[in-house]
């Protein structure tokens, strides 16, 4: 039981922890830490809570000084107008389609490439892996302009396939699967299947993929949120209201002239609901995915 970073004033040597006084002190310190973390956590989500509160305020209350936190006179007016006047549901659907398909493509390509790079060693594979790793360092923003012109050449601008073009593969995903295969799938298992006469494709589908379920789940969620929060790429690729995703739709909506804060907050609050729900549902997978990005070294 390591006691790490307990900001206790007294030196809690091995002995003091067992005395009643030391135990009470420790409990007090732990209570202090919990209190601090709860308050900090609430502060972190406070901006989002305020946003949701604003969605229910009347125009008069939004202009009130000092600003209120809980609406005194809650109204559904903002939400109904926004739903009636903006294609919010279309944007949510577009975001959802974009993020799911991107996550699907990334999971599939990473599974195939990661497995082959791990279990079929050859000089060619080593070179390929080096290239993939090298491109992982390059941020998307660096090469999105040439990619935009490629989408234009293919006639994919302002379409879902055009959006997907930027998010079909993920260098890190390939790396993640490769490491997972190396650590969790022994060569003997594959050899045994081969001796039993299994074909390579069958082995991949029936032996390898089921064993990679955890890693691929984490990768899927990571990729989903990556596309879900993409901004610059959808902004340049899509150009009509019916093609926007949440991020670009709202960003362009807020720069319009006739927008008032209540409606803007209502729109934002509505789109936050799926984000937050998805995250809370998939938190374990997401944490696993992000955590594995830190284990590169």
């Amino acid at each position, binding site marked *: 039981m390591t006691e790490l970073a*307990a900001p206790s004033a007294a030196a809690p040597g091995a002995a003091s922890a067992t005395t009643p006084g030391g135990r009470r002190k420790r409990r007090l310190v732990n209570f202090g830490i919990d209190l601090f973390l709860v308050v*900090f956590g609430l502060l972190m989500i406070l901006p989002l809570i*305020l946003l949701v509160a604003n969605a229910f305020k009347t125009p008069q209350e939004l202009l009130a000084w000092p600003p209120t936190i809980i609406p005194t006179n809650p109204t559904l007016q903002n939400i109904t107008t926004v739903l009636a006047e903006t294609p919010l549901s279309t944007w949510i659907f577009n975001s959802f389609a974009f993020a799911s398909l991107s996550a699907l493509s990334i999971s599939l*390509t990473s599974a195939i490439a990661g497995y082959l790079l791990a279990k079929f060693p050859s000089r060619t594979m080593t070179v390929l892996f080096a290239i993939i790793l090298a*491109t992982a360092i390059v*941020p998307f923003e660096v090469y999105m302009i*040439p990619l935009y012109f490629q989408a234009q050449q293919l006639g994919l601008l302002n379409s879902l396939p055009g959006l997907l073009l930027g998010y079909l593969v993920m260098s890190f995903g390939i790396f993640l699967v490769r490491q997972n295969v190396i650590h969790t799938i022994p060569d003997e298992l594959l050899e045994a299947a081969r001796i039993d006469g299994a074909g390579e494709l069958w082995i*991949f589908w029936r032996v390898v993929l089921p064993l990679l379920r955890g890693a691929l789940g984490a990768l899927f969620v990571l990729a989903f949120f990556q596309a879900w929060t993409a901004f610059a790429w959808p902004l340049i690729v899509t150009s009509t209201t019916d093609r926007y995703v949440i991020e670009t739709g709202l960003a362009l909506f807020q720069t319009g*002239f006739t927008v008032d804060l209540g409606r803007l907050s209502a729109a934002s609050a509505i789109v936050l609901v799926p984000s937050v729900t998805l995250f809370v549902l998939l938190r374990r997978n997401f944490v696993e995915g992000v955590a594995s990005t*830190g284990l590169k070294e």
Partner: protein
Amino acid sequence: MLKRRRWIFSLVAILPVLAIFAYVRVYPIGEILRLSLHKWDILSREKPFIGLANFQELFGDSLFRTALFNTSIIAFGVLIITLPLALVLAALIHHRTRSRFASFYETTIFIPHVVSLVPAAMAWKWIFDARLGPLNAVLSVFGIPPQAWLFDPVLSIVSIIVLCSWQALGFAVLIYLVGFKNLPKSLFEASKLDGASGIQQFWFVAVPLLKPITLYVSVATLVSAFNVYAQVYVLASDAQGAPGRQVRVLVLDMLENTFRNYRVGYAASEAVVLLVIVLILTAIQFSLLREKGTR
């Protein structure tokens, strides 16, 4: 024979993935390098080779220099806020792993990292609002006069740093938590027997051992902050007459050169500068890691 067949299978199977990968990653990266050495205005058909002229012009361009300066300030500002805060928070959360609120801590700190950027930025835009925002309301309680957060040249950058740090914090805490979980327990037991306090353990045992994690988090935070765009777009852009002072950042300048000024070659040279910054940061990370290994 069998070996050869397996080798052929692996190549055939990986081919489609490689083709996609080459088309959407390798090729555009090559293109950006090539375009940066050419003069290409979308409207003209010709793309003459002009060597490093784009880069020469870039460093004399006051808009670009402003963008580079602002972006660097934002990136390092985010790092300075995020890194120490994340380290302490991760230590506290790790210490309270068995608390019944543990999942509440994780969830609330990560949520800003995963929610859609624009709605979240919208919330902050209201908080920073000079006339109606709660930030000025809170400050007035302490007798501080209202500040024009999004209009003042310095404060608008501070606002962006706050927003970006709020979003970056969850990632950093998460990576540190993994680091804390992987620390060898025996060292803490030994230092405890020597009478080290919790704070001493944190400072003299955990922090030095977490150096590789700190390096990784620093570089990842810096790299993503150097690509800042959405936050600036919402809080401080002049798009379509929205009020507010424009804070010029690299990605914004790059997109403006491409789509407003139609100077693709020139924009490409900006992208290359961004790439060089990222490569330098990564090189520093690896050299510092290696230094530790040889010691």
